[in-house]
């Protein structure tokens, strides 16, 4: 079996893996990256990127439905779901090619096949082109995660599908039950319902998008109700039975029949068959235990991304990839600030948040002040015809420290970053309000909510 030597071997080329590989190469290290799918991993091929393409399609369909509002008369239109899927595949393909280009540009050796760790310095790859051993002074493991299911429920990607099936299937069911109303659940609810599927969202916790601020959940639920998306919260799924014609979902609140079921109950780290047990890598429940420099219990072996713990987000994986690469290169990088990771959901309207919810801030014994500004009072939002939602800023009453920000509304996922930067720089409410925000923009709502926290909102 052939052996090749590198400074660093990266296993997995999702957002964590490819970013760490590129950063290692920038720092002058020779890198091999192992991938058993396309470069870019789940994020780029089956997750973040293709779903954003589908959500854009859903938004366009939605705008066509609203055409008359803008004075555009249509004599009917046809929204081709298969073409939406094909478009999303083209988008994913283009991005994967982009990563492959970046690998070439940075002289990273992309090794197709499945990597299994054999020792703290060796990875065995088995693939179509046979087997080989890659040796590295350091290893970065970035194997990612895969959709979870409920006990006793098998995902066949036909009747019971996961996000993997949902981004591939060119036919759309007439009715769909989505189990789990987190980010994945509400995003697919948005896509399918825009194309006419009757969607029922089930959530075991008392509200949809349960990790977000309560007010966000409540208002998003009202908007979904208006769009005829059915929601059942606080319900436990007891069984999912697939038949020829459809699926029967039994809950503690009754049974629901649908053509398909989409499992969106979360993702599980891919830590099996990677060689971790043999190497003796310490685990923290179902994730690999890592140091602030992303090193596992085995010296020289690093783990990043979904396999290294929550939150399972691409941007957190990328940040960890940079830390791991710099630590390997002998630098002393700043550890990832897990308290300052933005959380984004791309349903319509979008949801974005950073820091603590209002309830959490109060629970922590902080004297808080809250400012809230609705997009109905934003000139830009009214002009766009996208007035659903609000910006909510939670700050420490005495210092003005920005404890949390929650945005529901148009381009929420873009607006959140001024608060991310602010929090990194330890800006307080005052620095935000002393920053001139261009008019008219959606970001003005961020300014107004901040003013509101100081009792100074102008446009409310």
């Amino acid at each position: 079996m052939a052996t090749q030597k590198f400074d660093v071997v990266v296993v997995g080329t999702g957002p964590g893996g490819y970013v760490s590989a590129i950063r290692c190469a920038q720092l002058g290290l020779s890198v091999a990256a192992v991938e058993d799918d396309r470069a870019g991993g789940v994020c780029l091929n089956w997750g973040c990127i293709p779903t954003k393409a589908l959500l854009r399609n859903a938004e366009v369909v939605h705008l066509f439905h609203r055409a008359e509002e803008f004075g555009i008369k249509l004599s009917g239109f046809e929204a081709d779901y298969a073409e939406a899927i094909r478009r999303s595949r083209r988008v994913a393909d283009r991005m994967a090619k982009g990563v492959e280009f970046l690998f070439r540009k940075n002289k990273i050796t992309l090794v197709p096949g499945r990597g299994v760790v054999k020792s703290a310095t060796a990875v065995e790859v088995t693939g179509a082109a046979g087997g080989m051993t890659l040796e590295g002074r350091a290893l970065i493991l970035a194997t990612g995660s895969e959709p979870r299911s409920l006990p006793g429920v098998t995902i066949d990607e036909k009747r019971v599908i996961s996000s993997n099936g949902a981004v591939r299937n060119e036919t759309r069911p007439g009715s769909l039950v989505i189990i789990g109303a987190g980010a994945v659940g509400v995003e697919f609810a948005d896509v399918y319902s825009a194309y006419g599927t009757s969607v029922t969202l089930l959530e075991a916790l008392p509200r949809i998008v349960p990790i977000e601020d309560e007010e966000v959940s409540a208002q998003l639920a009202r908007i979904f109700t208006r769009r005829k998306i059915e929601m059942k919260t606080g319900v436990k799924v007891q069984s999912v039975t697939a038949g020829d014609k459809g699926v029967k979902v039994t809950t503690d609140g009754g049974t629901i029949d649908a053509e398909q079921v989409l499992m969106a109950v979360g993702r599980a780290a891919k830590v099996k068959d990677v060689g971790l047990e043999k190497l003796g890598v310490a685990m923290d429940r179902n994730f690999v235990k890592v140091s602030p420099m992303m090193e596992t219990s085995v010296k020289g072996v690093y783990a990043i991304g979904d396999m290294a713990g929550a939150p399972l987000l691409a941007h957190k994986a990328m940040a960890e990839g940079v830390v791991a690469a710099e630590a390997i290169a002998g630098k002393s990088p700043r550890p990832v600030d897990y308290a300052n990771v933005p959380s984004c959901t791309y349903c319509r309207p979008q949801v974005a948040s950073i820091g603590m919810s209002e309830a959490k801030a109060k629970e922590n014994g902080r004297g808080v002040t809250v400012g809230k500004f609705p997009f109905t009072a934003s000139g830009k939002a009214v002009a766009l015809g996208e007035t659903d939602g609000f910006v909510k800023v939670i700050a420490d009453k005495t210092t003005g420290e920005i404890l949390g920000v929650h945005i529901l509304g148009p381009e929420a996922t873009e607006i959140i970053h001024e608060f991310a930067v602010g929090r990194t720089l330890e800006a307080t409410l005052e620095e935000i309000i002393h920053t001139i925000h261009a008019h008219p923009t959606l970001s003005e709502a961020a300014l107004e909510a901040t003013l509101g926290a100081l009792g100074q909102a102008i446009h409310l």
Partner: protein
Amino acid sequence: MAVTKVVMPKLSEAMETGKLIKWIKKEGDRVNGGDILAEVETDKADVEMEAFGSGVLRKILVKEGDTAPVGSLIAVIAEPNDDISSLAGAAAPPPAPAEAPAAAPAGNGKAAAATAPSQRPAAVPPQPKTEDHATVAKTEPAAKSPAGAEAANAPAAAVAEGHREQPGAGEGRVKASPLARKVAAQSGVDLHLVRGSGPGGRIVRKDVEAAASAAPQGARAGARPQFRPVDLTGPEFEDQPLSQMRAIIAKRMPLSKAPVPHFYVSSEVAMDRAWELREELNGLEGQPKISVNDLVVRACALSLLQHPGVNASFQGDSMRVYHRAHIGIAVALEEGLITPVLRDCHAKSLAQIAVESRDLAERARARKLRAQEMSGATFSISNLGMYDVTEFSAIINPPEGAILAVGTVRRVPVVEPSGLGVGRRMTMTISCDHRVMDGAMGARFLQDVKRLLEEPLRLLV
């Protein structure tokens, strides 16, 4: 062990040179940080100079009776095997300005050039800082006894040269996040003394929080008396050595009380409106908390300008009348007290007074006052209100002419036009130097202070 350069300390703002009266330690003597090295005569007083480094006093460069400029090298402390030839050969160089630390001294030849990079005499005794030279010992603050207005006989610290990563306390710009600044202002932490852990040494919130929690217990100790278990089995008494501060207080107090003919004038102030005003101010978002003492300081500052006779000092054959109100505010410490000076109070708003006096008090408790913050008061205030003291009289800090002793604000029955009511009252007593002023003068001053506190809106204009 590192080489410690001993330089002529700057003991007052005006000091430019110091005369070496006596070397307590001789060449070859072993010294520990905190030992008294020498006595120095400044324009104001004779001061004991403390060693900052430990080792052997290897070389004395300024003879007894000679004068040396502030900041110049006067001795070298090092271990016997340390090479100090480059230092010992250099005559006391002229002082380098503190603002231009890199300025090479205008020395002659190689020896001076060799020492140039490290010839950075600090303008003030350095504050204890973690990144300072390992040999920097505790800073015994140049304790100003209540009676010793001019830091006379207070132990001063000889300046040790250290490799400083940041300018010393009070110098230069501080890199800190907005949040760190706010937390520092609220917790009374001096950002100059905090080491930043952010990019480029930027001070972030956790650095300030760490500094605040590291502050000595005494800094936070409340006024509540603690019950201590009484041990009746031990010896009947014990003789405790006097702390430096206690010794100074013991020495200075009789020097005030005996030669200064004190007289006392008391007055009761209706504090109802001042109390209400304070509550209202403290309810405002983003305002510093105002204490009763801050109101008293402001009232005294305004009154002192109207009554220069009280803002005066007896000078033997003349009387010095001050046109500024620099007010000393007595701060109780475990082992005594210290009176940091809030300068130019007449020109400061209540908020400024509140923020600055809290900062001074916190740093006084943390022993982090700078020398110039401990002298130069024209008047003092001692407030024992937090100990529930009704009234008391204080001993004057010479050469100041008066000191105001302030009691607690009590709720008492008062006679109002409509009958008996409940009011807030506070008693204050001024101690005056009879050589400078007379009873009526002190009384008129007190009357003005009382009026300002009873019509407190005047304090805001």
